[in-house]
């Protein structure tokens, strides 16, 4: 199943979840031409937000991506509080819920490096281009090298 970006992002916004969009979808917002398959967000770790995340996502059957079926995974506030980064499948597609990211920190750290995007009839925060490049560099994954090159090219195109 492909991720329904047009449903997943409005779901989070309408559920009142505080998040910053990062990763490949943020890259697309910024002009990247690369296809991506999941939504990556850095979420606020405050208690109210954890409750909103659970309320919003639970009806869409979140489960640990790649884990064998049938594990006793409880998607609740204690699980979110005791963990940090969750790679999930949901009925609307794959979602990475990240409490912190290498090179960027948490939600509050990223806030000064975001801008508001209006899409799918909702508004949400997206990380800016220099910060997205920084995050991808800090992640240090070989698979990101081509992507970083494209983002750097976007930065150059924007500077023209």
């Amino acid at each position, binding site marked *: 199943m492909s991720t329904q*970006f*047009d449903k997943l992002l409005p779901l989070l916004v309408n559920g009142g979840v505080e998040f910053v969009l990062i990763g490949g979808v943020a890259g*697309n917002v910024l002009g990247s031409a690369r296809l991506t398959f999941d939504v990556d967000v850095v979420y606020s770790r405050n208690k109210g937000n954890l409750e909103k995340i659970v309320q919003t996502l639970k009806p869409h059957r979140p489960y640990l991506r790649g884990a064998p079926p049938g594990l006793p995974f409880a998607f609740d506030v204690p699980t979110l509080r005791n963990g940090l980064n969750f790679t999930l499948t949901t009925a609307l597609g794959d979602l990475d819920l990240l409490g912190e990211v290498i090179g960027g920190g948490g939600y509050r750290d990223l806030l000064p490096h975001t801008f508001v*995007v209006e899409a799918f009839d909702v508004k949400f925060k997206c990380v800016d281009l220099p910060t997205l490049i920084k995050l991808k560099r800090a992640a240090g994954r070989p698979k990101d*090298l081509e992507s*970083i090159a*494209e983002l*750097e090219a976007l930065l150059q195109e924007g500077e023209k």
Partner: protein
Amino acid sequence: MKMKSKRYRDPVVEAYMSGVDRTLLRENLKLSPAQRLEKLVGFSAFAATLRRAGQRAQTAKRR
């Protein structure tokens, strides 16, 4: 000694940059962020359709 303020350029990334199709980027930059996301949704659905067709073709070939 003063550090140079020039941004670090990764030679591997630099090598990849010559292969980036900037015409695609320039076309995307003409769109609004919302339009870029609509495009992603369309491509994603298209890729899913292709993937299913490929799976069906492979299943049929095995029979």
